[in-house]
């Protein structure tokens, strides 16, 4: 299954191949991102790392780290 991912901090869009039943946690691991430092939204709704991706959509990854 293809998943579109938007990484807000880098303003980067990537397309990932994921297995059906993969979780947000699996995607973050694949992207080498620490779950503590990000908030994830699936089709604009906040989801936890345990959320199972069952259909295509856009996963946005927002950094929680700020400075200034």
């Amino acid at each position, binding site marked *: 299954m293809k998943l579109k991912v938007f990484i807000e901090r880098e303003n980067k869009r990537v397309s990932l191949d994921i297995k059906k039943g993969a979780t947000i946690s699996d995607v973050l691991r694949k992207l080498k991102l620490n779950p*503590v*430092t990000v908030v994830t939204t699936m089709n604009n709704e*906040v989801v936890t790392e345990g959320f199972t991706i069952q259909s295509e959509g856009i996963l946005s990854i927002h950094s929680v780290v700020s400075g*200034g």
Partner: protein
Amino acid sequence: MTCKNCSLKPVYKTLNDRSLCRKCFIKYFEKKVLRTIRLYGLIEKDDVVVCGFSGGKDSATNLYMLNNLLKRYGKQPIALAIDEGIKGYRNKTLDDAKKFCKKYKIPLKIVSFKKEFKKTLDQFLRKWTGRPCTPCGVFRRYLLNKGARELGATKLATGHNLDDEAQSILMNQVKGNVQLSAKLGPMTGVLVHKKFIRRIKPLYFMSEKEVTIYSKLQNFPVQYVECPNFNDNFRDEIGNILNSLESKYPGTKHGVVNAFLQVLPSLKERYQHDEIGTCASCGEPANKDRCKACELLER
């Protein structure tokens, strides 16, 4: 996996593995902030509260929470924003700050480096070779204190969160600067000066992740952007260490802060007899004969 209270889709999982939906997370968050305010006596009945407001998620959450709390007593906080004069950044976040205050009908006062110090931060940095955050922090703290006092504040509330505090504690430990740590805690200020406004941190026990989720769920009109000048490698490094530990050992940041709070009363006791002076140039509170802002401006 569903919310432990109402079986809806969760937006957050707490440290003790409770999954919470949108509504239950908001309730959990607000309850925890109010508990901090009550437990540490951050706000008293007669206080006039000014909130430092940058237009970012932390200060917006802080302002929103205090506005709701003070409404119960027929009062309101005043938002105080500092315009450092950082081209392409602060003008945008100040626009957000104006929109936010208009939306929630909160009075907003903006004070600028240009007006107070006769130059913007960008102009000051042209002759500065060190880290930009050093003079910016000094000038900002100066103006927040002075601005809050001029607005009649008895408390100055900032959006510092658990991550900020855990980082500051570890940074001071690594540098062996115990005296600086005595100024930390949910309510700062070990020393008294008639011109010094005590600072409070209502988001003290909320992690940066929790604040981000809250801000997103409330649809605050804020941008999640970083200052282009931000270059605090030491804080970054400590932050990365804490985040890595938090991921392996959940609860690390709370552990650091809670352990620190146990020794904080002794630290405050030890340093409360040190005197805080008055700047010979501007009359503001100062650790030496002259305050850091005046020293920097005359370099």
